[in-house]
């Protein structure tokens, strides 16, 4: 029996690995040679020569692709009273929010399930099940919105859809197949949860979890390829003639940077949404045990969100650097052009994210009697977080009238101007991350007393680590940012990041050894949380949703008046780039719609557990 189960597990694992690598094989390569006889070249080449070549070489009979169409307003169908762009924008964004959630949840559900299996603590298993239960309803909504998005594109942007399908037809077909696979695996994973329990069955269940993640990620990567192709087209010539193969088009310049960024962001986002779920259930809980359970769930969700939030700025920085590397024009439009002010809004949103996540942690210290030791230090962490946020929030250039310019003595403020450039902001972000981690360290230690003999030395080492690390971050930021060549300004950000990561990883390692077998100060009081702390979880989810919407606008907006950057021009009446206020309004409406749907999903999960006995309603059955 054991051998048989092991074989099944091994087989399923192999299937996962195969699925990860089979993607390119799904797409038969349309070789450059096949596409060479484009319309442009065939016009120049003599027909007779082409014909004789065709006879001599079967490859010359291959498919020829048309260039990107040149569209006018008349080529875009309209429906009176419907703004095509806003409609497609909202549906795409809603699809992306739900999609990000349903791709992310199985990732941490899988990890939580593994933790439950390793520790044999059933609470983890129940929590993982609860999370996947929420994502099931969200999965249906994702599919419905995906369908709506396709309809929207076909209806309002038929030529764009046709052009993209011409290039990505194989991957679109693969996407449809993978979607079936995703549904099948998700349903087995969810409905088989209680069936596949214990012993080797648990391993089989976990394998399905892994498979679910593999398929989910492949779906996202494929959709990312279509999106990034529109930003950094590959395998096409200047006229948009497809002359490569599908894999080249998928593996375009910005594909992997977006993949990495979205995987990390999705986990943080998914964590924040399930955190809001836990908060909702906590606030609705009638019983003490229920409140304790959802407090614990909320803590774990917040932990997931913070864990992914810490590396997220680095993933974003990498993506932006790659945009610059792909096209300096695109990079400058993004950071120094019309979108530059968006990063001030982004600073506010990320500030809200970090402050709410930290606030929740500080409130969580109230669960423990031992936390009082750390309470006096919280105000210093709060002060650093706010200062770091303010530096990040400081704009570089200001939009000024002539008289304002004269009063200020130039385009930059004499004192605040120095905080406007990237070295200051990089330093601020690294401080934000390090002090958020410090909050977590305090929280983790709150109810424990280390019993190892070297506890004092360990503490001293950690203090030294934080001190030296922070000094290093400041030196890298100030010296290389202001007193050396411009080239080092950006380059110094890498050792800054590495310093932050070193602090976090080394401190975690020391802490894990130091608090092994540590003594509890008192029993933890799960559920002893003020209601306002739960609103911090809501703030996290709402801010994240709004932030994703805003950054989605920027990512799409930097193409400006192009459907596909520089090769396929947007000829619609909506080809203009909307201003920030307009975009903020669309994003706000989208966030309201999303939050309404999400709260509805939470509410559904509340009523699904209720069972009313309708006395006298049903006919009595004879035994």
């Amino acid at each position: 029996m054991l051998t048989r189960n092991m074989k099944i597990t091994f087989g399923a694992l192999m299937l996962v690995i195969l699925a990860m690598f089979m993607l390119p094989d799904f797409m038969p390569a349309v070789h450059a040679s096949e596409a060479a006889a484009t319309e442009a070249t065939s016009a120049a080449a003599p027909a007779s020569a082409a014909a004789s070549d065709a006879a001599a070489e079967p490859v010359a009979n291959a498919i020829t692709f048309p260039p990107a169409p040149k569209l006018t307003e008349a080529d875009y169908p309209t429906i009176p009273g419907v703004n095509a762009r806003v409609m497609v924008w909202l549906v795409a964004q809603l699809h992306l929010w739900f999609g990000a959630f349903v791709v992310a949840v199985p990732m941490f559900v899988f990890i939580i399930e593994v933790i439950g299996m390793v520790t044999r603590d059933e609470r983890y298993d129940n929590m993982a099940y609860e999370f996947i239960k929420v994502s099931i309803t969200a999965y249906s909504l994702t599919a419905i919105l995906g369908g709506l998005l396709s309809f929207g594109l076909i209806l309002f942007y038929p030529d764009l859809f046709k052009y993209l399908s011409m290039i990505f037809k194989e991957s679109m077909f693969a996407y449809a197949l993978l979607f079936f696979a995703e549904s099948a695996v998700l349903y087995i994973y969810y409905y088989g949860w209680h069936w596949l329990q214990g012993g080797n069955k648990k391993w089989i269940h976990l394998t399905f979890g892994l498979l679910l993640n593999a398929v989910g990620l492949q779906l996202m990567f494929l959709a990312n390829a279509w999106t990034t192709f529109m930003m950094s087209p590959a395998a096409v010539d200047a006229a948009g003639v497809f002359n490569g193969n599908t894999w080249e088009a998928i593996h375009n310049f910005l594909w992997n940077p977006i993949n990495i960024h979205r995987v990390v962001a999705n986990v943080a986002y998914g964590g924040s949404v399930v955190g809001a779920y836990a908060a909702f259930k906590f606030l609705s809980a009638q019983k003490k045990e229920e409140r304790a359970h959802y407090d614990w769930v909320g803590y774990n969700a917040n932990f997931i969100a913070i864990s992914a939030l810490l590396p997220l700025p680095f993933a974003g920085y990498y993506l932006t650097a790659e945009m610059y590397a792909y096209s300096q024009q695109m990079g400058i439009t993004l950071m120094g052009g019309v979108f530059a002010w968006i990063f001030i809004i982004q600073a506010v949103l990320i500030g809200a994210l970090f402050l709410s996540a930290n606030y929740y942690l500080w409130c969580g210290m109230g669960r423990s009697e031992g936390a009082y030791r750390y309470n006096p230090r919280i105000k210093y962490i709060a002060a650093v977080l706010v200062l770091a946020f303010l530096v990040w929030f400081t704009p570089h250039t200001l939009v000024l009238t002539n008289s304002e310019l004269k009063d200020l003595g130039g385009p930059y403020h004499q004192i605040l101007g120095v905080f406007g450039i990237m070295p200051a902001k990089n330093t601020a972000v690294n401080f934000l991350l390090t002090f958020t981690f410090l909050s977590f360290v305090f929280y983790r230690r709150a109810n424990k007393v280390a019993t190892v003999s070297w506890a004092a030395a360990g503490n001293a080492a950690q203090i030294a680590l934080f001190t030296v690390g922070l000094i290093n971050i400041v030196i890298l930021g100030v010296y290389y940012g202001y007193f050396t060549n411009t080239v080092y300004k950006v380059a110094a950000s890498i050792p800054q990041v590495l310093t932050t990561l070193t602090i976090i990883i080394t401190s975690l390692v020391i802490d894990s050894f130091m608090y092994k077998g540590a003594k509890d100060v008192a029993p933890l009081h799960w559920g002893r949380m003020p209601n306002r702390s739960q609103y911090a979880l809501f703030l996290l989810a709402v801010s994240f949703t709004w932030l994703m919407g805003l950054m989605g606008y920027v990512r799409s907006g930097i193409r400006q008046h192009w459907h596909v950057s520089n090769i396929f021009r947007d000829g619609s009446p909506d080809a203009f780039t909307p201003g920030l206020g307009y975009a903020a309004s669309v994003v706000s409406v989208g966030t309201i719609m999303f939050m309404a749907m999400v709260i509805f999903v939470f509410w559904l999960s509340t009523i699904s557990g209720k069972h009313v006995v309708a006395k006298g309603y049903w006919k009595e059955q004879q035994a």
Partner: protein
Amino acid sequence: MKNFFKTAFFSLLVIGGFWGFSNFGIPQIKPAPPPVEEKLDLGAMTMDQFIALGGKIFNGKGTCTLCHNAMGRAPMLDKVGANSEERMKDVRYKGEAKTVQEYLHESLVKPSAYVVAGFGKSGTNDTESPMPDVSGGGIGLNEAELAAVIAYLQDSSGSEVTVEIPQMDAAPAEGAAAPAEEVALKTPEEVITKHTCGMCHKILDQEGALGPDLTKIGAKRNKEYLRQAILDPEAVIAKGFSGGMMPPTYGEQMKAKELEMLVNYLAGLK
């Protein structure tokens, strides 16, 4: 249900805060509308108008000021006329220009011919420029627009304006003798020599290294590919080489017979 409304209200409040800040807390910058193709009536233009047109393109469609500004992203062009003379003499110069006008044209369509120290792509040691070819891609200036920009650059940097206003649609003068019809070349070697393919490629007895080695190209590429590579060199860039190097004008320069002869010859190199 009470909690449903409370959380919904709180969410609305947060969203409203973000919306309000974005609309009223930061300056509202209206992005420029998409550029519109203008019909240029060059025949009726004076040189001053032509220079003004160049300035308009420089600040607008050409998107030059995105980088060539006081922020230090790209070199300032206020002395580009005088600098051009020095740069053509610099050992790092890889172009073929002989005059300031040619140099400026080259800088616009082959920006890597000379990269000002400190402004190259990172990691290229100032051998590759981050600037795109402004005659292609999203900017797409035509020859008349390029000439206008050059005139503007010469004028604004205090140099003599040597550009002539192009007469793009002008028909040949009546009575002018038609140019003598050139006789097609007879061998592929003659075609290769005439078009100096060996300057960049390893072919015949020449050892050019700027483009791919063509001595065994037929083993890897078929005729269709080779034909396209000659007619539209930017369509597919060989691995390890950068675009923008090979002239895209061979389609106009070669006769069909010469092109086919060259393609057949290259396809036979195995």
